[in-house]
């Protein structure tokens, strides 16, 4: 049994006292920094990256990094739920209903649901990774440029369907995001694009800076509009454990979210973000009470959180096997591996089996530590809320500034934070949702690269996108989603739902 041997190797690697210790430190630090509002997993990992290099052994170092990732991700969900400030686009979905639950005084239950969902998803997807890593890699390897392109179109279209308000505005936000995403040096010709002659933007706008600006700073500004309303919602946090009824209502969404997340996570480019969005759409569609969504639906927290975590886990597959980052965090992991002298790619699994399976096993151990640590510690995280907001936001601004600066030690990233804070705030005031913009921003460069590559491969024949079966199927899905949101009855219903929310 290859599987058992591999898992045994993985667990024996991950459960040495030293590695367990590094995993624990990683999870703790990740949660601690990640729970600070406005600092998402990417910024947290970027900030903590330097310490992992202090550990000589690459396996321990990557295990700790993975621990930081899970901790940061859980921390990000915590801030999304408690103060509607998702540090990462994948927890933006959690914020929709999680924050509403918190406003109804059910923050504790929402946090526990997120933790339980994440743990279940983590357990299942760890085993899925172990079972399916080799065959799934074969499938992912068959993906050509056309398929990647079509896959990303599906992701972008589904983010439009999810956005509040006008579909046209959401489309415009996606397009604007794509344009902002391709700021920087053109990969084929090396020509600088839209950098306004500023050399520091040659590598593109920093994702962390854009995310912190559009979500974090814009949200602070919105809160400063009417400070009086803010302090009220904080006092009524109680009931940390979900009720029996909650457990009944979260079981199915967790299972569905896990399946969706595991499936989407392995696809490079989409990963956890896409999974969370997709799960939310599915839950809303299958729900008997879709009108609850956006107003504190338990399924709206349980589904996306499980999907998000499952996707985060399985997004290690393209990273470990193809060397392709599914998200900015994986890009950081790849950077860390290269610094440790490991070349990410198909050879890692065969040449460094202890590393490969050790990381997979530590995923599960990390998730276990997360639930053991965080359910009792939730009270501590909730306490953060009793701090008045006017004390909290200077702290957030200071940490955001440090975090963004620490990613690249580039002062221009901080100017980008201010710029995107302004843009994000103004656009929000003009009833435009920031989430599609951010997804467009992440996918912009990948979308362009694959479009251009596909066109070169097909000798300039755009029909390649519809004649290749997988690509055609994905485009059909995208088209179907787009048609559905424009169908008059659905459109009307959708508008009603979103109007009620706001």
């Amino acid at each position: 049994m290859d599987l058992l041997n591999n898992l045994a190797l993985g667990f024996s690697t991950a459960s040495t006292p030293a590695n367990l210790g590094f995993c624990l430190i990683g999870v703790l630090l990740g949660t601690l920094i990640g729970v600070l509002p406005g600092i998402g997993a990417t910024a947290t990992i970027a900030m903590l990256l330097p310490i992992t290099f202090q550990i000589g052994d690459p396996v321990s170092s990557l295990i700790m990094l993975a621990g930081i990732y899970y901790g940061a991700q859980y921390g990000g969900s915590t801030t999304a739920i408690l103060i509607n400030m998702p540090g990462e686009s994948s927890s933006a979905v959690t914020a929709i209903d999680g924050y509403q639950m918190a406003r109804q005084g059910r923050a504790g239950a929402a946090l526990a649901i997120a933790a339980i969902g994440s743990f279940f998803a983590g357990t299942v997807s760890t085993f899925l990774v172990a079972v399916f890593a080799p065959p799934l890699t074969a499938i992912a390897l068959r993906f050509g440029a056309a398929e990647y392109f079509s896959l990303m179109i599906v992701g972008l279209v589904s983010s439009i369907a999810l956005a509040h308000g006008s579909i046209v505005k959401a489309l415009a936000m996606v397009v604007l995001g794509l344009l902002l995403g391709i700021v920087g040096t053109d990969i084929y010709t090396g020509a600088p694009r839209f950098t306004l002659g500023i050399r520091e933007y040659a590598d593109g706008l920093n994702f962390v800076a854009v995310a912190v600006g559009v979500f974090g700073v814009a949200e602070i500004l919105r809160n400063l509009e009417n400070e009086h309303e803010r302090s009220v919602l904080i006092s009524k946090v109680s009931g940390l454990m979900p009720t029996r009824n909650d457990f009944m209502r979260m079981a199915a969404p967790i299972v569905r979210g896990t399946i969706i997340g595991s499936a989407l996570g392995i696809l490079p480019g989409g990963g956890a973000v896409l999974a969370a969005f997709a799960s939310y759409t599915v839950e809303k569609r299958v729900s008997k009470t879709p009108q609850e969504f956006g107003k504190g639906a338990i399924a709206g927290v349980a589904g996306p959180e499980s999907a998000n975590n499952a996707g985060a886990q399985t997004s290690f597959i393209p990273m470990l096997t193809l060397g392709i980052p599914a998200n900015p965090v994986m890009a950081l992991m790849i950077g860390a591996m290269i610094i440790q002298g490991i070349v990410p790619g198909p050879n890692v699994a065969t040449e460094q089996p202890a590393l490969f399976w050790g990381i997979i096993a530590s995923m599960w151990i990390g998730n276990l530590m997360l639930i053991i640590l965080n359910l009792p510690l939730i009270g501590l995280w909730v306490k953060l809320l009793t701090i008045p907001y006017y004390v909290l936001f200077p702290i957030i601004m200071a940490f955001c500034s440090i975090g963004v600066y620490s990613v690249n030690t580039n002062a221009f990233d901080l100017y980008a934070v201010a710029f995107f804070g302004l843009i994000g705030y103004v656009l929000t005031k003009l009833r435009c949702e920031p989430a599609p913009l951010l997804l467009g921003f992440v996918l912009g460069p990948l979308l362009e690269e694959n479009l251009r590559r596909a066109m070169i491969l097909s000798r300039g024949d755009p029909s390649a996108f519809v004649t290749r079966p997988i690509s055609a199927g994905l485009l059909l899905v995208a088209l179907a989603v787009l048609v559905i949101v424009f169908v008059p009855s659905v459109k009307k219903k959708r508008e009603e739902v979103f109007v009620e929310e706001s």
Partner: protein
Amino acid sequence: MKPFAIDRTNGLCAALFIFFGAFFALQSLSLEIGTALRMGPGYFPLVLAIVLILLGAIILVQAIRVEGEPIGSMAWRGMLFILPAPIFFGLTVRGLGFVPSIFLTALIAAFASGRMKPLTALVLSAGLTLFSVLVFSYALGLPFQRFGPWLPSWLAL
């Protein structure tokens, strides 16, 4: 004849998208466009920019036909103090060094709220600076110079 009226929220929104579209379109034109087979660096952004302008135009048409929600109050004071905070940090973190820079950044941001009292702001910024230095500089070992070259050298620790 109905008087010509335009919804302010959507009108501004359309203007913003058209402005961004025009900016990216103009910039793209100065790049090599290429053909559909061999796309130059300007091809994809030009297509996107045109789409963005068109979407802006659609929103503009809607703005003339339908009246939307009002924009509501703007956080002018917040913008005045929050947005300069990261810029200030970026400008001074090398010159002044991490410690004074983060202290002043927090202090600037603190005044974005009308509820903040000067003394509270000072105490908060000082505490925050202490915490940040301990955590980020000492514990995490981020490579920030604690006191920069703009300050007299006897301060450098």
